[in-house]
């Protein structure tokens, strides 16, 4: 009995994999198997749901941030005013900060997409919300009348002074040239504490709004929100992409995506995101087109796991 090694090619040819099956068959009931599958998986799903439930940690609001970490809130509001926050220096799609976008050599899709979700952090996060208040703050008029250079100087001075103060406490800041910044940041803190800022920042003056971009970016510019994520093992350096709050499994299928963020050269690259996404796209394409790659597609023959899968077949022939 001569065994002809079967081709690993995807092409149809004169071989046993390509011909309609003419050998022996066994009984098979597709609908019965589907029914059994649905019942077994259904029992598993209901059992797991009943035992482990699902996590639902309440979201963070600007109000809860202002109450829990007022100093961090004031420092963040000051950074938004001075254009030194993460969002202010992000680049597209939020603003056109020079040299802020990620690129692969000359290929810069972030820049190509343009500023599509324009955010001016000083106005959108601080000044415009304060303008919605019934009592107009004199500090707002002082700020808007000043030159951009003067505004940046005031904000930078106050940011430095907050960083030097014990616990970043605005009440313990040394005297200096801060212009209207302490009043603006303090008023915004008051708005946040009362819960007004959440509504104002989120609805952007419209009765309907499903877009939470301003709130989430503002929260992320502070330290409080990321510290909560770190405590819940959700940050990038904690493989957070594949984690969930609590002990519930998250998107564990993203393990490889998450792994790249933990290793060089991705880890410390300023272009980490575009590098990791590109690598994952290439690897996914490679696996999808695996049958086209001679040599590589013979791997299943060289590592004979198929002998385990078809143990009965190989054992009986």
């Amino acid at each position, binding site marked *: 009995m001569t065994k*002809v090694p079967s*081709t690993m090619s995807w092409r149809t040819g004169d071989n046993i994999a*390509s011909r309609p*099956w003419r050998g022996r068959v*066994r*009984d098979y009931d597709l609908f019965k198997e589907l029914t059994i599958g649905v019942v077994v998986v259904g029992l598993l799903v209901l059992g797991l749901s009943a035992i482990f439930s699902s996590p639902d940690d309440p979201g963070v609001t600007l109000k809860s941030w202002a109450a829990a970490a007022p100093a961090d809130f004031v420092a963040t509001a000051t950074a938004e005013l001075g254009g030194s926050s993460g969002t202010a220096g992000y680049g597209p799609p939020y603003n056109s900060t020079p040299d802020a976008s990620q690129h692969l050599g000359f290929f810069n899709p972030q820049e190509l997409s343009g500023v599509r979700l324009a955010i001016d952090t000083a106005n959108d996060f601080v000044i415009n919300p304060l303008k919605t208040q019934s009592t107009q703050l004199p500090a707002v008029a002082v700020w808007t009348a000043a030159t951009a250079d003067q505004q940046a100087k005031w904000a930078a001075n106050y940011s430095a002074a907050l960083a030097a103060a014990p616990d970043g406490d605005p009440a313990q800041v040394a005297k200096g040239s801060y212009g209207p910044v302490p009043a603006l940041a303090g008023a915004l803190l008051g708005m946040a504490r009362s819960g007004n800022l959440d509504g104002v920042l989120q609805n952007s003056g419209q009765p309907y709004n499903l*877009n939470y971009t301003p709130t989430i970016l503002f929260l992320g510019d502070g330290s409080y929100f990321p510290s909560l994520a770190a405590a*819940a093992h959700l940050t990038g350096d904690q493989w957070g992409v594949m984690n969930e709050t609590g002990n519930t499994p998250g998107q564990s299928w993203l393990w490889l995506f998450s792994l790249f963020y933990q290793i060089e050269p991705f880890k410390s690259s300023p272009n980490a995101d*575009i590098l990791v996404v590109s690598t994952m796209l290439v690897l996914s394409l490679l696996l999808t087109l695996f049958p086209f790659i001679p040599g590589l597609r013979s791997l299943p023959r060289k590592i004979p796991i198929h002998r385990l899968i078809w143990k009965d077949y190989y054992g*009986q022939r």
Partner: protein
Amino acid sequence: MSTVKESSPDPELAGTGAYTWTGKSRQWFLRHLPPEKLLPEDQPSYVASWAYVFGMGAVAGLIFIIGSGVVLSLNGPQWYHVSSLGHFTNSVHLWSVELFFMFMVVHLWIKFWMAAWRGGRLLTWITGMLAFLVSIVTAFTGYLLQTNFDSQWIAFEAKDALNAVGIGAWFNVANLGQIFMWHIMLLPLAVGAVVALHVVLVRAHGVVPPLDAAATDAQLRDSTAGAQDPEVKPS
């Protein structure tokens, strides 16, 4: 007004009724996927391994994902925060997703080691991979719809990867309206279509035989002698 049917100019099609696009399509489907292939009552004798249950397991998982997802979407994304039935439905949605991925990944790797693309099954492999990749994006949008701390943080973290490749404005992870649309309509349609095509292709091409199988193998021979397995029967 009456129409007169003229015979087809193609002699091969004469008498088949297949002189319209519809008729030709019917012929094509019947040739590639006759009813006995679509809904078979038997399978090649080598289709006898625990390895074959994972594909069906993934389909069963998908059924529970769609069922629980329909209930969740009909009640709106915040219902499950305030209703115990809603929370349980959310748990069913989560765990059916976890099982769906577990079954699908095992199925994928088993098919990889079987080299299941052999013998004209290329499109079956590619649609399987597509189903996996589109499911990953769909699940990701589901995590963004939780409207809780986890979804806030995922939105903040994930925006960087999407912005870096230039699609952050159209796939804005912090825009609940956009993500809701992706998660309950566009992506489920894509997953459903790709999985349906994958299953139809599996039926059309049949299950790939073992590597180095030969028609002379005892288990495969068209013979009634020596059959050990009572389920195995001659074709």
